[in-house]
């Protein structure tokens, strides 16, 4: 993103010649070269989504194997070692490699379209964050596949994660892989924040952006703040393990609880970061099927931000049993109870939207609306754990396992699947099959609740989490069997979704530009959108530019077919942070090998560190440096360098 010269952009209307001119400027080269160099946010977004769904399937298969082991008491399908690596890898996969990246994928794909822009603010950074995400997933799974998967749960408490008790490479793979993933998340977060602040279409003041923007923006502002804590935590762990430092070693004045603080200062905001964008999808998608705008836009947007701010002050509720002083506990307990309020705002807004609208039942609507109930179930179980004395009983039992799955499946996976039904036509030009969609929804919904609703009771009957087996006579046999059956039904539901995607890609009913008659800007362009998104930059006058004139408002007219042409280069418009007044012409970069090369270099650095091969690490640093030089080399077409005789 770079300011161009101060010429005034031409205003005009869309035309065929104009489109072909833009096409030449924006189109990614076909073939392998284009695949490796593209900076198109739509391609990157789809890559994120596809990669995340593959990892969802992998993490799901891991869960099914564990559920077989737990189907009855004293089973020995898995050894304790295998079970421990499976549950740890399952958590790592779902929380770090599926839940967050899938939302990054949707947001990457949708943001510029929602905002009336032609790309993200930093397209090459965008490509970089995807490649590093992919590399870290490969890195982490290389550990698992060579028998060195993480084995201390996703939150990885020391001292068990430390060298004395865990001498294999398992925790080194996990530590370094997580630091690598942190680079991807941080780069992505910075990109989202600048994109939201600087590339909105003229007129789209901050109070007119879709709620998805609020959700992803808030989540990424939090990521920018908290990811350093967890990267540091993992880095210190690696130092403790490999170089004999004592950050977490109580025998040498270190502190095991330091890990827990560093991890949860990150970990709890992260939980919100992987649900707020999904809640945004519901806030934007649900009203389309209720045929009215969202109830309480402003309070929903504000409560999104409020959730995140309060979310910074609740991390200790993961540590109630660690012997911290009562005064501290009461503060965090209070904050954890109060955080219910902003969440409740969203629930009542969605319910009111359904009641005050005229709902049309589609598969996407079923996913979005059922999510409200799942959100409430996950919310009230969270509310119970917020009360310290109650939590001292609930914590680390299956009650918490049920809670986290209602949060992550209920508030992440269900909106994502709803979002897939909703936006698939935009991304591919074809509908997902509605009939198969109903089967998909009901199988998923019934399977999920069958698996996880009884699990609350399993927890109340005292079953501790993370046990590879259990004795009979504890009262858990039947409930565990039900959960195992439910998990397979859920898996069939997810399989139906994949089948639907593959079938519909080839033979789905073609969808037009705006198949649901939805109000926001992504529906103003063709399906799938052209590489440049908008032939002319739209001007926005309301929150629902495509519904204007039909909601009884007067004098509000957005313009999507007449606006800035910006066709003298790869350009889009930069606007001011709050009011979105046009500010500068942004010169966007061409496709480039630099992000891929930098990602390869950075990842090889981590391979070198893992192997303690300083030569490899050094060579990898050199590759990264070369990539950076290529990337940063001043280019005339980006106005980074003046013509020699200008």
């Amino acid at each position, binding site marked *: 993103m770079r300011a161009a010269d101060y010429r005034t952009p031409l205003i005009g209307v869309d035309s065929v010649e104009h489109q072909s001119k833009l096409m030449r400027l924006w189109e990614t080269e076909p073939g392998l070269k284009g695949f490796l160099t593209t900076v198109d946010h739509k391609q990157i977004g789809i890559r994120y989504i596809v990669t995340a769904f593959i990892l969802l399937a992998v993490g799901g298969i891991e869960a099914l194997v564990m559920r077989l082991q737990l189907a009855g008491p004293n089973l020995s399908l898995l050894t*304790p070692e295998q079970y421990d690596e499976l549950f740890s890898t399952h958590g790592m996969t779902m929380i770090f490699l599926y839940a967050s990246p899938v939302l990054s994928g949707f947001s990457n794909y949708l943001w510029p379209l929602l905002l009336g822009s032609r790309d993200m603010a930093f397209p090459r950074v965008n490509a970089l964050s995807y490649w590093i995400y992919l590399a870290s997933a490969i890195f982490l799974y290389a550990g698992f596949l060579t028998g060195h998967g993480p084995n201390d749960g996703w939150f990885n*408490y020391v*001292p*068990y994660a430390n060298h004395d*008790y865990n001498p294999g490479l398992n925790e080194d793979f996990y530590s370094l892989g997580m630091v690598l993933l942190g680079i991807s998340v941080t780069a992505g977060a910075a990109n989202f924040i600048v994109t939201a602040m600087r590339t909105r279409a003229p007129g789209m003041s901050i109070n007119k952006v879709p709620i998805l923007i609020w959700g992803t923006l808030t989540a990424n502002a939090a990521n920018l703040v908290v990811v350093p804590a967890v990267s540091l935590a993992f880095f210190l762990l690696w130092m403790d393990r490999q170089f004999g430092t004592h950050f977490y070693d*109580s*025998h040498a004045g270190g*502190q095991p609880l330091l890990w827990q603080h560093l991890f949860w200062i990150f970990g709890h905001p992260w939980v919100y970061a992987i649900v707020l964008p999904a809640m945004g999808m519901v806030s934007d998608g649900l009203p389309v099927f209720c*045929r009215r705008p969202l*109830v*309480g836009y402003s*309070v929903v947007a504000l409560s999104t931000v409020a959730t995140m701010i309060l979310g910074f002050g609740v991390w200790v509720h993961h540590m109630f*049993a660690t*012997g911290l002083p009562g005064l501290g506990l009461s503060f965090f307990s*209070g904050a954890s*109870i109060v955080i219910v*309020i902003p969440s*409740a705002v969203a629930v*009542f*807004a969605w*319910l*009111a*939207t*359904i*009641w*005050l609208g*005229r*709902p*049309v*039942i*589609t598969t996407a609507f079923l996913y979005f*609306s059922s999510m*409200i*109930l799942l959100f*409430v179930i996950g919310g*009230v179980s969270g*509310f119970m754990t917020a009360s*310290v*004395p*109650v939590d*001292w*009983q*609930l914590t*680390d*039992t299956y009650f918490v396992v049920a809670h986290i799955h209602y949060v992550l499946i209920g508030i992440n996976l269900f909106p994502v699947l709803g979002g897939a039904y909703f936006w698939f036509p935009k991304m591919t030009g074809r*509908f997902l099959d*509605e009939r198969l969609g109903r089967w998909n929804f009901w199988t998923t919904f019934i399977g999920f609740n069958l698996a996880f609703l009884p699990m609350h009771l399993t927890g109340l*009957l*005292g079953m501790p*989490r*993370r*046990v*590879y087996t*259990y004795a009979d006579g*504890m*009262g858990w046999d039947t409930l565990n069997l039900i959960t195992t059956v439910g998990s397979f039904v859920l898996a069939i539901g997810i399989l139906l979704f994949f089948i639907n995607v593959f079938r519909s890609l080839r033979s789905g009913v073609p*969808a037009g530009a705006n*198949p649901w008659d939805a109000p926001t800007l992504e529906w103003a362009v063709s399906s799938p959108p052209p590489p440049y998104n908008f032939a002319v930059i739209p001007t926005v006058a309301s929150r629902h530019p495509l519904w204007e004139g*039909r*909601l009884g408002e007067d004098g509000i007219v957005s313009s999507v077919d007449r606006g800035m042409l910006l066709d003298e280069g790869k350009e889009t418009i930069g606007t001011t942070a709050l009011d979105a007044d046009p500010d500068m012409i942004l010169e966007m970069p061409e496709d480039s090998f630099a992000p891929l090369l930098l990602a390869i270099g950075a990842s090889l650095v981590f391979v070198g560190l893992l192997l303690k091969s300083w030569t490899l690490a050094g060579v990898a640093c050199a590759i990264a440096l070369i990539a950076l030089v290529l990337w940063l080399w001043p280019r005339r077409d980006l106005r980074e360098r003046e013509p020699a005789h200008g």
Partner: protein
Amino acid sequence: MHLAPLTYLSAAGTRAGITLPLTWFTLAIAILVCVIIAIILWMGVKRAQSRGGAAETRSAALLRGASGLNWIGVGLLISAVPLLITLVWTMVALARVGTPPQHPAFTIDVTGRQWWWDVRYDATDPEKTFATANEIHIPVGQPVLVRLHGGDVIHSFWVPKLSGKTDTIPGQVNVTWLEASRPGRFVGQCTEYCGWQHAHMAFEVVAEPPADFERWRAAQLQPAPEPTTPDQKRGMAWVEYRCGSCHRVAGTTAGATAAPDLTHLMSRHKIAAGTLVNTPGTLAGWIQLPQQVKPGALMPNQYLTGQQLSDTLAYLETLK
């Protein structure tokens, strides 16, 4: 609730007793909220005039509708009531369960280890000090202070019928307390993931009338009896030689503390941290092949000959 020994939906002690009504209250609120929201949602969705797909969506007319802000306002007002009650109740309950007793009957030190519980009674008074493992006896109606130590990795000490969880963390001493309101055998369990045998790291708290407790304590203070028969004598030599490198039997040269104290092994209801009921048969199996019962446990398989095993058992059975 006899069918579920670890459930915390019933209580038999002061701490758990204070918490239980709050647990039921929040659980009731939680279920009530889910039911109410489910009904509102269901009725709202039932109002749908059309079901189908994109064509039905497109053809449905748009609606400006009411602002609906009163839904949010009223909803929040109603939600605030149980939240406020819970907040106040939580603080009151926390003050009561979180404050250790000023005058405990006595203090015990419990150390969580992979994968068993080391228990020491009254460490301040050498005359009354003794060690046991995986089984804690307390007198009914008297508060007992428990100091928790982390022996290796983090574990968590939990006796659901008596008290919520407190972690045992290396480098710090955490405090919890037990007070049983009725006699009974209450199951405890490690609840912080601690490695391969986290699943098999249970213990028992035996609450008994004060007189019974005193008898138990007096017995535990005794050293191991002298062996009398030849096979017991051979067994003792074998225990001192083999078991003594990790275990202790008071009154013999077996004096290591890396593993459970065996001085009164046969007084315990279970072995291997709550994994097996303590009978001569299970004990023999455990001594020979602990790695089959608890893979990864620090005790290696022993592969004793039949004679060695029967001698060892003959001696161990005297440790009552």
